[in-house]
């Protein structure tokens, strides 16, 4: 798991509490979406038969991340503040290598911008955790 960030906070997932209501996905889309374009969420819930069986999947912000290693233009960098690996959109060339390299499927290519897209912990205020009604996602 990721190194401790400057802000000392982590996104903590407690799947037992997840009802798969998908509020987190909605909040994520909303936070990252452009006007008139509902963004696809960067985290996903999986309903395996209701609580406590559900799973919430988001980027693990790996230490020695395959996406970072494979990027030819160092467009994926770790934020000192949050510890999240973020996409520098102006630097990304859209080659898609990171999306294929991530073993957990946490990077996708934005079909409109043709750039990589992943969880960036909303810069230190993750919308998913803020809106999770059951505290299955917490940022503290």
């Amino acid at each position: 798991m990721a190194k401790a960030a400057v802000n000392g906070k982590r996104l903590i997932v407690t799947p037992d509490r997840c009802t798969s209501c998908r509020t987190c996905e909605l909040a994520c889309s909303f936070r990252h979406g452009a006007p008139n374009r509902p963004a696809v969420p960067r985290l996903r819930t999986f309903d395996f038969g209701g609580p406590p069986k559900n799973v919430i999947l988001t980027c693990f912000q790996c230490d020695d991340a395959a996406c970072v290693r494979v990027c030819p233009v160092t467009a994926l960098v770790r934020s000192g503040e949050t510890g999240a690996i973020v996409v520098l959109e102006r630097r990304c060339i859209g080659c898609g290598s990171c999306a294929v390299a991530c073993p957990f499927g946490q990077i996708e290519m934005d079909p409109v911008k043709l750039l990589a897209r992943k969880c960036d912990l909303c810069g230190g205020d993750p919308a998913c955790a803020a809106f999770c009604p059951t505290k299955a996602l917490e940022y503290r």
Partner: protein
Amino acid sequence: MIAMDIDGRRVVTEEGRTLLDAAREAGIDIPTLCHHEALEPFGGCRLCVVEAAPADSRGPAELVISCLAPARDGLVVRTASERVKEARRTVLDLLLARCPTSDVIRRLAAEHGVPRTSFPESTDGSKCILCMLCERVCAKIGAHAIGGAGKSRGKRIAAPFDLAAEDCIGCLACARICPTGHIGYEETDDERKIWGRTFRMVKCEVTGRPLMTEEQRSFEAKRAGLPEDWFTKCPESKRRETAETIAKAFEEVR
């Protein structure tokens, strides 16, 4: 810390930043065509010109390209003076004459007050503005498959000896970075054609969706120090697989 006056506003930035960086950080828009943050600055399109002069200078300001000119303390920068606008208009007028069929250039020119070119239009249908982003991104990736050939107006982007580009890995970075859509390619689920080459696609083992070319896989695996079989599935399949693994693990714990 460096403090400058950009268009009458005080803009503070750090040592090592360019005028373009500083202006953009301050929300001042400067148009560019050949600039890309992932690549070494080039300075060819001249669209990002600005006027710059030290505050204490009495001589005329210099017309510099903001993508390369370093930010300096006390610099007075004008990003939209008549001289700057005239230079930009002329550059776009010239590019419009070169690439009259490019929507991107047409739109950009119109935005800068050049609805049509004042020069005879080129009739070759090319949309290449010779920004060299393709050559530079290809080099940055490390393939060096394509590059500039010839000089002057005869300069063009080409594969070596105008044959199939042997060093190409079919990654499409050139086509994607091209601002005008000049670089063409064809693609099906099974193969991709670009620069005279036909590449076989690696497909997701689960969904069968195309992931990348075989050559790109070998190339990227080597660079990242990962085994080739690391690149076998599409993100969606990997997510599903990961979720199932986690669910199973929790099941076992319980």
